[in-house]
């Protein structure tokens, strides 16, 4: 198969665009899509300091690589979750990537800073590991970005992540979540940092191909806690639809964004206030993070 752009040896067929690309044209394509995402969604500008959440997986490392390649001012943030050898490998890959590029990496260990890893936090609070992990990540991403003066927090969510999340939210008509499902979430509280997803136009397969052709050494192993997750089931369903009708995922998610009303992103009925304990933004009196830490402190 030949590259439809330059005639070189193709490394990836993209049925949704009815095209094939070689390694060099894949890089051009990926950068074009990110550039368009950043511009269309007013994510950040040249003078902004960007904190990139990096797990050690393909998406976040590819995102960091792309933003550095585009010349943006970035620093990585890695949360050590304390999930055995998976977390150890994740840290090694992230640290190795940062060192190889001479990039600054902030490392936050839940075990050291919060006193317990994700599995222990889940057990102490009767939450699922994914739920406990989500609270810890969201809180620390925002707090660290705010405390260190970053303008924006970027995560590696891709088209498949967003389409599958949209499918899950529609299937359960979770309108509150639907309202917040945007590639750019503005800072709606003085201590809330703007959040962006610059990879939302790129399919997971395209990003994986980018990571492979650019020799990005990422964690191939899947988080052991994700087995059987709804996200994976939704992605499989969408991939079956995509195989029958290429372009389904992009028309589903990008079509949703076109139809989303600006007022949906600043809903009056969801008042964000300051947590009475830590001062961080929350919709409750005491935030989920503080409630989880209460249980850690009360544990024998």
């Amino acid at each position, binding site marked *: 198969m030949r590259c439809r752009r330059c005639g070189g040896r193709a490394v990836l067929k993209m049925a949704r665009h009815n095209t094939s690309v070689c390694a060099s044209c894949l890089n051009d394509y990926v950068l074009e899509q990110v550039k368009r995402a950043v511009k269309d969604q007013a994510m950040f500008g040249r003078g902004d300091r960007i904190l990139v959440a990096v797990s050690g997986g393909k998406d976040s490392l590819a995102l960091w690589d792309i933003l550095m390649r585009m010349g943006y001012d970035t620093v990585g943030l890695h949360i050590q979750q304390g999930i055995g050898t998976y977390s150890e490998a994740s840290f090694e890959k992230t640290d190795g990537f940062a060192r190889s590029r001479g990039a600054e990496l902030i490392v936050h260990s839940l075990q050291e800073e919060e006193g317990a890893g994700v599995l222990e936090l889940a057990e102490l609070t009767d939450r699922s590991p994914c739920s406990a992990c989500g609270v810890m990540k969201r809180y620390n991403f925002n707090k660290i970005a705010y405390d260190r003066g970053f303008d924006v927090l970027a995560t590696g969510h891709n088209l498949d992540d967003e389409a599958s999340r949209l499918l899950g939210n529609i299937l359960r008509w979770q309108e509150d979540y639907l309202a917040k499902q945007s590639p750019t979430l503005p800072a709606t509280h003085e201590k809330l940092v703007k959040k962006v997803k610059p990879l939302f136009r790129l399919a997971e397969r395209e990003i*994986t191909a980018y990571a492979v052709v650019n020799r990005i050494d990422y964690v191939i192993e*899947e988080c052991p*806690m994700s087995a059987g997750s709804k996200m994976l089931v939704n992605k499989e369903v969408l991939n079956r639809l995509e195989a029958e009708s290429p372009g389904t995922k992009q028309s589903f998610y990008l079509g949703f964004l076109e139809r989303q009303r600006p007022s949906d992103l600043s809903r009056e009925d969801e008042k964000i206030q300051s947590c009475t304990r830590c001062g961080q933004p929350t919709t409750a009196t005491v935030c989920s993070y503080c409630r989880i830490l209460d249980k850690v402190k009360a544990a024998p």
Partner: protein
Amino acid sequence: MPVSAQLNIGPDWEYDAAMRVVLQHPKRETEIHGPRTVGQLLKRLNLLPEAVLVLRGDELITEDEALKESDTLEIRPVISGGA
């Protein structure tokens, strides 16, 4: 006389390839006979092209790529995610 006729097997096995295939999640290795292209290999394994990439060595190859008996292939899943 074609090899398939001598062996009294169908023409599909004329250029039969036996290649080593590395699968992930969990990591394991198997040997597969028959597929002549990446697309046929994925069909044999009942995998959607949208959910995986195929590597020969450290090079990505597309679905129409012809396979050889000596090939060692890796099937790299592209789907990840929790919650």
